[in-house]
């Protein structure tokens, strides 16, 4: 616990290191010289490097992902640190959690219920027409609750919450507010970045949880109607689908979706090189990264569930 309380002092300031925008870790505030987070890596990014363009691009790509992972570890440490939940930070955290989730919760519930109803109807009608109605419910649970709803929730949270938050971070950084905060002795990572990351993750999990429960209820009502007589059979089907392996994979997948959505946009904004040197915007790049990672997680979960 004592170690954790020192962490904010260690990771006290974000600095722009030339065009690389690397995170600098300073042990004391007296050291004001701007130096990159990784000197060797910084030399690789310079245009006068010894490597050809292709190699340099590959290294840049790897370095980008490494920075996201590093940022994730950093945020995780901050999230586990009790000082991050001091009164001043807690207010910011509460504000972000509420403002990022509550306004879109109802919209998302309405939207996902509508889509779920349509898909449930299609699946049930198709299954009945083939005489396979006993498999309809299991298919609905597998397709919607296990796969589609968490995916939709992650994408929705990324578009409505994580990307705008990242844009805010970018603006704050370019306006020099991070430096101002650091000069006031406030760690911008704790005050501004951590609440946004946590709120994006919370938003993803919240949307997924609410709409999964709602979809399960809708599936029951669509298949059996307003009766409690089929609850035992429905519970049995649910238990059949959610065996221990599937449940663990589902929980892991939801957590990783949340982590992806929360970390990648802000990490891209914080660590990315200058926008002027890129043809695509940082938001678009982070969106592509989110999709790639979500796709990989989804494929891995499918392999885990069905192979």
């Amino acid at each position, binding site marked *: 616990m004592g170690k954790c309380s020192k962490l904010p002092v260690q990771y006290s300031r974000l600095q722009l290191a030339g065009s690389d925008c690397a995170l600098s870790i300073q042990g004391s505030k007296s050291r004001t010289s701007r130096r990159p987070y990784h000197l060797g890596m910084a030399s690789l990014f310079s245009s006068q490097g010894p490597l050809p363009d292709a190699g340099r691009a590959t290294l840049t790509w790897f370095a980008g992902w490494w920075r996201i992972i590093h940022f994730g570890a950093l945020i995780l440490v901050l999230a586990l640190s009790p000082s991050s939940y001091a*009164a*001043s930070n*807690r*207010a*910011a*955290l*509460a*504000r972000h*959690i*509420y403002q990022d*989730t*509550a306004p879109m919760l109802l919209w998302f519930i309405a939207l996902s219920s509508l889509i779920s109803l349509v898909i449930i109807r299609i699946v049930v009608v198709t299954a009945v027409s083939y005489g396979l109605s006993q498999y309809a419910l299991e298919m609905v649970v597998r397709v919607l609750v296990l796969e589609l709803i968490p995916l939709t929730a992650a994408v929705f949270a990324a578009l409505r919450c994580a990307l705008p938050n990242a844009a*805010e971070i970018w603006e*704050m950084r370019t*306006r020099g*507010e991070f430096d101002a905060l650091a000069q006031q002795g406030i760690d911008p990572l704790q005050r501004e970045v951590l609440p946004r990351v946590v709120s994006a993750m*919370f938003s993803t*999990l*919240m949307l997924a*949880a*609410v709409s*999964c*429960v709602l979809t399960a209820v809708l599936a029951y009502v669509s298949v059996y109607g307003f009766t409690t007589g089929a609850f035992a059979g429905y*519970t*049995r089907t*649910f*238990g*059949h689908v*959610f*065996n*221990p392996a599937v*449940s663990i994979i589902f929980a892991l997948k939801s957590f990783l979706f949340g982590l992806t959505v929360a970390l990648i946009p802000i990490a891209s904004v914080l660590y990315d090189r200058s926008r002027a040197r890129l043809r695509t915007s940082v938001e678009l790049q982070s969106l592509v990264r989110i999709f790639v990672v979500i796709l990989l997680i989804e494929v891995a979960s499918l392999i885990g569930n069905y192979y």
Partner: protein
Amino acid sequence: MKEQPSAASPSARNLEFKAALLLALLLLLVAGTVVYLLYARGAFEESQRLVLIAEDSEGVTVGMDLTFSGFPIGRVRRIELAEDGVTRIIIDVPRKDARWLRVSSVFTLTRGLLGNTALRAFSGILSDPPLPDGAERKVLLGDATAEIPRLVADMRELVSNLRALTAQDSSLAASLGNVRDVTEKLKGPRGALGILLGNEADAKKLITALDRTNALLVRADGLVAKVDAQVLGADGLVPEARAAIVQLNAALADARASLKKVDAILADAQVAASNAREATADLAALRAEVDTSLRKVGRMIDEVNRRWPFARDPKLKLP
């Protein structure tokens, strides 16, 4: 930069409360889901173990239901291969459902045509003792697809028979050829007669016979007309017969009158006979008197004979 409320302001406290509500909602949903899944997986109910031994566990999966009368009463927990090569299907049966399983229960593993496999339990005698925990039972295999090879063999035989039937040199083809010949002959000048008689000469003979029969019929027609005239004509048999019948009727009337007279005579005879019967009623007395007189005459003759000198000596004298 957004305006941030201070930590102690009412709006900040309000936000914290709302955020706490959201967090509580998420925790509630997650905890509820976990509890529901544990309940659905049967974590809160006591169960007993049943081991089904099968030669082949194809299609059986972990989590599959064991059904009794269509209701799931157990769930496959594990499938393992025993040392002797048979499959052991380990099933957890909740205590509340275990009452349907008895020591005499039979377990079947059936595979449908679509590959869906079902484990079923049948308990014929529910008064038998309940199945003990950890019981091992052999499972009977009922495979719908096992019928397919036999069906295919039958189909192949059927197809080969059909092929033999429809071959160029088969009896069916020959029969059809004959039928074609017959129909062609039917369309020919002699028609069905040519087919029936086989050759044209006989057909001609038959036609000639028919012609002659026609001529004969014409003559028979004339004959019938003559017979008609003879029988039904003015002087024919029928009018004469009718006259004879009239005469016969008259004769019959006479006979009836004669019979009436005979009746009267018979009545008289009956009267006479009755008189005679009355007369014969006194004959008995008369006869008795006659008998008496005759006995007297007899005794008198015997007396006369006895007294008569020439009476014969009826006695035999022995020397």
